[in-house]
């Protein structure tokens, strides 16, 4: 049985590797068709390209900066309004965070995930997935609404489940200081929602393992690198998780760059065997891309300086959204408004049901598509 699983598993790396041939092209993001219908597709596209990661979580560095800036601007103006509503003039002296400061804070908590994972002895898959979740979360949310310290814990817990390594919430929370199960679970739905319920993540460390197996299988001329080279390349991949590479490049491209940082010759040789089979991607464009990834890893793959983050965090205590802080006036006002809307909805529903009950009982059942009174779902209070 071992032999077979090995064969199948290797092929799963092979398809990750196929994706190496893809170079980022902003047009592709829109032109990629959604239908994965095999019988229609004439050109066989790599599996990676039908993934939600390829379709929805990939953009150019400029687009990434734009997303973060507009998210930050919208958040600042919304929170400013909340402050003003509670007490006019109160937002004047608040120094809100800018997009870069938000990113800095997120990055610090990205760097905490490996420590937590080591504590629990979670596999690499869990760690990498949790980091991706945390980073994706802040492409849809601001740290001024949700502090990364709490989101990180939820992202990690969710990642244990989506990667099929579940542990009970009690076991999880009891190992983390000052954390109750509800602290983790309360945010779970929000995190899942922010991820668009797209839980599957393609990781660079898997692609690296695929390249590593490939190197040993070059026909006639296997490349033998010491295991320490693999470990060093894996180290670069772990570093890359602190950067934006995963939003810009394919996992296989990041893996190739990581290998290239350790064993440039082997990386080039491996890439040549892939490129020669493909007409779209030239060796030159691939190598320039690898160089950009390498410099991105080396330049921005650093854990932020704790002192500068502490300064950001101190300001965050003042500028965070009061609507999200239980007990504040704005928080209570928002909850009250939500409760009022829900009550309105329920009342409307009851009215509808009563109306339906009052109608001609003989006329009712014939119309199949009209809501039948007996089937009204009383516990469905959400539509």
């Amino acid at each position: 049985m071992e032999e077979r699983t090995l064969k199948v598993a290797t092929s799963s790396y092979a398809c990750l590797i196929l994706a190496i041939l893809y170079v980022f092209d902003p047009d592709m993001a829109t032109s990629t068709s959604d239908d994965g219908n095999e019988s229609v597709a004439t050109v066989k596209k790599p599996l990676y390209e039908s993934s939600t990661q390829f379709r929805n979580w990939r953009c150019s560095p400029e687009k990434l900066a734009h997303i973060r800036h507009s998210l930050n601007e919208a958040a600042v103006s919304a929170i400013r309004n909340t402050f003003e509503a509670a007490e006019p003039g109160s937002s004047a002296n608040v120094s809100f965070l800018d997009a870069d400061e938000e990113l800095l804070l997120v990055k610090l908590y990205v760097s905490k995930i490996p420590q937590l994972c080591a504590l629990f002895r979670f596999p690499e898959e869990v760690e990498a997935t949790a980091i991706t979740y945390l980073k994706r979360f802040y492409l849809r949310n601001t740290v001024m609404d949700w502090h990364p310290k709490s989101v990180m814990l939820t992202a990690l817990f969710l990642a244990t489940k989506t990667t099929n390594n579940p542990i009970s919430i009690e076991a999880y929370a009891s190992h983390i200081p000052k954390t109750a199960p509800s602290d983790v679970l309360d945010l779970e739905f929000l995190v899942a929602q922010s991820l668009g319920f797209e839980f599957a993540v393609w990781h660079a460390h898997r692609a690296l393992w695929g390249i590593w197996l490939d190197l040993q299988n070059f026909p006639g001329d296997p490349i033998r690198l010491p295991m320490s080279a693999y470990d060093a390349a894996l180290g670069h991949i772990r570093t890359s998780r602190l950067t934006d590479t995963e939003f810009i490049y394919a996992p296989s491209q990041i893996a190739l760059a990581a290998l290239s940082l350790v064993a440039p010759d082997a990386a080039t040789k491996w890439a040549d065997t892939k490129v020669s089979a493909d007409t779209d991607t030239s060796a030159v464009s691939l190598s320039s891309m690898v160089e950009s990834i390498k410099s991105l890893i080396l330049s921005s793959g650093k854990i932020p300086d704790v002192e500068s983050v502490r300064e950001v965090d101190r300001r965050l205590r003042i500028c965070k959204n009061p609507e999200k802080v239980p007990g504040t006036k704005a928080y209570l006002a928002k909850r009250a408004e939500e409760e009022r809307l829900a009550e309105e909805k329920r009342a409307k529903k009851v009215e509808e049901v009563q109306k339906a009950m009052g109608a001609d009982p003989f006329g009712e059942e014939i119309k199949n598509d009209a809501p039948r009174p007996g089937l009204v779902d009383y516990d469905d209070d959400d539509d």
Partner: protein
Amino acid sequence: MDVVEKANLDRQKRWIKDSKAGEGTYAVVYRGHEAATGKRVAIKKIKVGQFKDGLDMSAIREVKYLRELKHQNVIELLDVFSSKMNLNLVLEFLDSDLEMIIKDRSLVFLPADIKSWMAMTFRGLEFCHRNHILHRDLKPNNLLIASDGQLKIADFGLARDFADPGFKMTNQVITRWYRPPELLFGSRYYSSAVDIWSVGCIFAELMLRTPYLPGESDMDQLKVTFRALGTPTEEEWPGYMKLPDYVTVGQFPKPSLRDLFTAASADALNLLNKCLTYEPRRRISAREALYHSYFFGLPYPTHPSKLPKCAKQVAASRPLEDLNGNVEKDATGPGVHAKNNRLKRKLSSPVDEPKGRSIARRLDFTK
């Protein structure tokens, strides 16, 4: 309002819930439609708040895999949105499933019909396996049938990615009658071959019109399997006696499949045999099966639109796989009926079902 909340609200507004179609163990299913187009959908509302450990694993699995998979023969997840603490999956609307069709005694299957269903099953499964996903719960009532006759693999609540070599998986998967012997013997390292065994059982069931290996317990399942296919020899399946939960089941001779499947073609029996091969490594893969001579010989598979369909249930009853408890409702052969009730693992609301039917009858009457 947060960006996320707003995006969710927009999604929610795209879909309209109409009426409750049934209730499963962890979900309520509604018939619904798309606001803009009127396209029929099924909305599966999963109650999230009730689980101690937060989002439930089977909901996570289902969403995770269906989000990624798009294929003609895999059920399509059109959208996901949340309402309060509920997770709503918007799925394509499917009228019936293969189990209902198998049990509808008024339908006659031609060999070409069976070939068509098998081809669609293997196509969908090949796509799952190509994406490195094990389904781990294939059975006739998880193979849904669209109104145009297309078969779609559904219910990914037990699915998972292929494990890396040397990593354990649970053997507590696949509904017993469709479970391969390596899982019954407690194997924790297995492959896509487990799904192929299930497809073999479904293939046999399509020909027999009754479940092929209906064991009454895990132990009995092995006995039923060995009685039908012969006790494997060490040569046929090297090393199986060393599997963790190995027990001696008894010696049964290998009967000829021909004796039971009297009407099957030689090609059909050959493919069946390759799906029900004991040694998982020698079992045929989904891809190989698609190239099997069975699919190239005469008769050619029936066009999906011309396949037999249950006439009655189409009206209303159950769009989703979740409501398995109800399938035996009409036109079931006497013996099969009683037997099947034992294995049903999911609940459904007993009240809605007959009501739905009586309404359908009255509809006919008024015409």
